[in-house]
C-alpha cells in the first residue's frame, strides 16, 4: 500500500460509498454532537418527514451557546434569559427526550461547551469521524479524529442516516519546528499560523499539524491549535495520536474496556501519517522565533507580535475599515493600549490548563480599576477542578467574575456581551465586527496575555508578569 496521510487513513476507513465525478462520497459519522442553536430546525425536519434518529447511541447533546453562565440562572430561580433563548434550551430538552438522545442538561455535572466535553468525557477518540453544527468541531482533531463543522441541513442528514455526502478535501501539512519559548503558548502559535497562511489559506484543505513543537504540546494545547483551524479557512485540523494522547485517553470516564485498550491503542498509534506520505501543500513555521501574539483588526489573520506596531499601509480599504472599527491607527504600538473587558474562556481556551495559566498571573494581584474580567470554565468538570485547586478563589480575590460553563462572551448570545466601543482582550477565537456584542472591539490573545492585560488595564506583554 502506498504511503498515506493520517487524513487519508481516517477518510478511507469511513467511506461507505466512494466519491465519483458525479456523486460525493457517503461518509460514515462515528459521533454526532449537537447543541441548542443549530439543531432545532434539523429535529423539526425529522418530525416533518416522520423519521427517527438512526443511531441515537452515536448522538450526544449539550447546552452551551445560548445558555447563560450566571449561577442563579442555572441552579437558582432566575429565568434563563431572553424568552427565545429559553425556548431554544427547552426545545433541545424536548427533542432529546422525544428522539432518545442523551443530553447533558442544564444541571448535569457533565455539561459544558460541546468541544470541551467531547474529549473530556472520553467520547472523542482517535480515528473517529466527528461532526457538529459548529465550526469549532475542528478541536477534536487534536486527538486524531477527523472532525468538522456542518450546517443544520447536514445535522438533519446525520440524524437520519448517520452519514454525510462529502467531497474529499486536500491536505496541508503545517510543520512546526523548534520549541515555544517561555510565556509563548499554543494560542500564540495558532494565531501566528493564521497570520502566516491567512484566513482563507486553508480553504479546501484538512490541516495536519506536525513537528517537534507540536508533539511537545499537551492535549489541552493541541486542542487550542486544532480549534482555530477554521479561522484559517480549513474545516478540520489533525494531530497524530502519540503517548501524550494515549495517557490522556486512559484517564477519561468513557474509554475502551481495559482488556480492549491495548488493541485500540495499537490502532490509534498506526493512524499517524506514513513516512513519505504526500501532502497537497506544506508550510513551515519555527516555533522558537514566536512571541506572544495579539490581533489588532477584525479577523484572526490580522495579528502581530505583542511588541509590534499596527500596520499602516495607506490605500488598503480592508485594513482601513478594520482600524476604523477598532479605533486604532496605523503605526501605533499595541503595548499600552487601554483595555475595558477581559474574557477568559471558550472552546479555544476554557480548559483547566488555561485557567491555571490565568491564575498564575492573577495570583496575589488585582484586576485593574475600571476593567471587567470574566472567567468562564469550558465545562462543569473544569469548574469543579478549578475550584478544588483554589483557582476560583484566585479569580474572585483578584476581582474577576467566576461563572458556570458555556460559550459566554465568545459570541454574546447568552447575556454575556461586551459593550459597544469597549475594547476586550479575549481568549476566544473570533474578533469579527460585532462578535462579542454590537460595536464590541475584540483582541484575541492567550490566557497569559489576557490576564496580564486585566491586571494592568493596558495591553501588556505577559512575560513581564510571569
Amino acid at each position: 500500500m502506498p504511503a498515506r496521510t493520517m487524513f487519508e487513513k481516517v477518510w478511507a476507513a469511513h467511506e461507505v460509498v466512494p466519491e465519483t465525478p458525479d456523486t460525493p462520497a457517503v461518509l460514515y459519522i462515528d459521533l454526532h454532537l449537537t447543541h441548542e442553536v443549530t439543531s432545532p430546525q434539523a429535529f423539526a425536519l425529522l418530525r416533518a418527514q416522520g423519521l427517527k434518529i438512526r443511531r441515537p447511541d452515536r448522538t450526544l447533546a449539550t447546552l452551551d451557546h445560548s445558555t447563560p453562565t450566571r449561577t442563579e440562572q442555572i441552579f437558582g430561580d432566575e429565568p434563563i434569559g431572553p424568552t427565545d433563548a429559553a425556548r431554544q434550551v427547552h426545545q433541545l430538552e424536548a427533542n432529546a427526550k422525544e428522539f432518545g438522545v442523551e443530553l447533558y442538561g442544564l444541571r448535569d455535572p457533565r455539561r459544558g461547551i460541546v468541544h470541551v466535553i467531547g474529549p473530556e468525557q472520553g467520547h472523542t477518540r482517535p480515528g473517529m469521524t466527528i461532526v457538529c453544527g459548529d465550526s469549532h468541531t475542528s478541536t477534536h482533531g487534536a486527538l486524531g479524529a477527523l472532525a468538522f463543522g456542518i450546517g443544520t441541513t447536514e445535522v438533519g442528514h446525520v440524524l437520519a442516516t448517520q452519514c454525510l455526502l462529502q467531497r474529499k478535501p486536500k491536505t496541508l501539512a503545517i510543520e512546526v519546528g523548534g520549541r515555544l519559548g517561555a510565556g509563548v503558548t499554543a494560542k500564540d502559535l495558532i494565531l501566528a499560523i493564521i497570520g502566516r497562511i491567512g484566513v482563507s489559506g486553508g480553504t479546501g484543505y484538512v490541516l495536519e499539524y506536525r513537528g517537534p513543537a507540536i508533539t511537545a504540546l499537551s492535549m489541552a494545547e493541541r486542542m487550542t491549535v486544532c480549534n482555530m483551524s477554521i479561522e484559517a479557512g480549513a474545516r478540520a485540523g489533525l494531530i497524530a495520536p502519540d503517548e501524550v494522547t494515549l495517557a490522556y485517553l486512559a484517564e477519561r470516564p468513557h474509554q475502551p474496556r481495559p482488556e480492549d485498550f491495548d488493541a485500540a491503542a495499537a490502532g490509534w498509534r498506526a493512524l499517524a501519517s506514513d513516512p513519505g506520505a504526500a501532502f497537497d501543500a506544506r508550510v513551515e513555521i519555527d516555533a522558537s522565533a514566536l512571541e506572544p501574539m495579539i490581533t489588532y483588526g477584525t479577523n484572526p489573520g490580522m495579528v502581530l507580535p505583542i511588541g509590534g506596531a499596527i500596520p499602516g499601509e495607506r490605500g488598503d480599504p480592508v485594513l482601513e475599515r478594520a482600524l476604523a472599527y477598532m479605533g486604532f491607527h496605523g503605526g501605533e504600538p499595541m503595548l499600552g493600549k487601554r483595555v475595558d473587558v477581559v474574557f477568559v474562556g471558550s472552546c479555544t481556551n476554557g480548559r483547566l490548563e488555561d485557567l491555571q495559566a490565568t491564575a498564575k498571573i492573577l495570583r496575589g494581584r488585582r484586576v485593574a480599576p475600571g476593567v471587567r474580567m470574566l472567567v468562564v470554565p469550558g465545562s462543569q468538570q473544569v469548574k469543579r477542578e478549578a475550584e478544588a485547586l483554589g483557582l476560583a478563589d484566585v479569580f474572585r480575590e483578584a476581582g474577576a467574575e467566576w461563572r458556570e460553563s458555556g460559550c459566554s462572551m465568545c459570541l454574546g448570545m447568552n447575556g454575556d456581551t461586551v459593550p459597544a466601543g469597549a475594547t476586550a482582550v479575549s481568549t476566544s477565537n473570533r474578533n469579527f465586527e460585532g462578535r462579542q456584542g454590537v460595536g464590541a472591539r475584540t483582541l484575541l490573545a492567550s490566557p497569559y496575555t489576557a490576564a496580564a492585560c486585566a491586571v494592568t488595564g493596558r495591553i501588556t506583554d505577559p512575560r513581564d508578569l510571569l
Partner: protein
Amino acid sequence: MEPIKTLRSTTVVMPSTNIDTDQIIPARYLTVTTKTGLGQALFADLRYAADGTPKPDFVLNRPEAAGSRILVAGHNFGCGSSREHAPWALHDYGFRAVVSSAIADIFKSNALKNGLLPVIVDPATHRWLVEHPGAEVTIDLETTELALPDGRRVTFPIDRFARHCLLNGIDELGYLRAQLPAIERYEAAHGR
C-alpha cells in the same frame, strides 16, 4: 426545493473581503427554532442604526438595490461560523446567488442546500463586477456560465452533484436515504 435553472438580475455589490457569518447574521438573532423570517436580520449591524432605523448609506437600503437577487461580494465571503442561518437569511431576503472570487467552505456547502448559488469567478471578472454595481447579469446553472451585460460569458465551478440537485429540485436527504442498504452493510462489516 424549487429547481433553479437560470437567474437574471441586477447585482448588489458589497466589496469588502472576508464578510463573515457574524456580519451576515449576528449571533443574537440565532435564538430561533425555525428558519423563516431571517431576512429581517440579514446584515443587521451594517443595515440598521442603534435605534433600529435603516442606515441610508448601506447598500441594501438604497432604492436601486430593491429586487436584486444577486449579491456580488468581496473575496472569502461567508467565512467563520457554520450557522446555516446565514444562507437562510440571504435567501429569505431575496438573494438567489452570491458571486465572489472565493467563498468559504461551510458557507458554500450550506448555500447549495438552500437554493442559494455560490458562484466563484476569476479575479478579473470579479473586479469588473465589483466596479459595476447594478449590472444586469445572467447565471445559467445548466451551462455553468455567468453572462455579463456585454455578452461575455465566464464559466464557474460547481459540484456536479449539487448542480444536479439544484437543477431538478432534488433534496439531498432523499438521495442519502436511498443509500441506507449500503450504510447498513458498512455498519455490519465495520462493527459500528
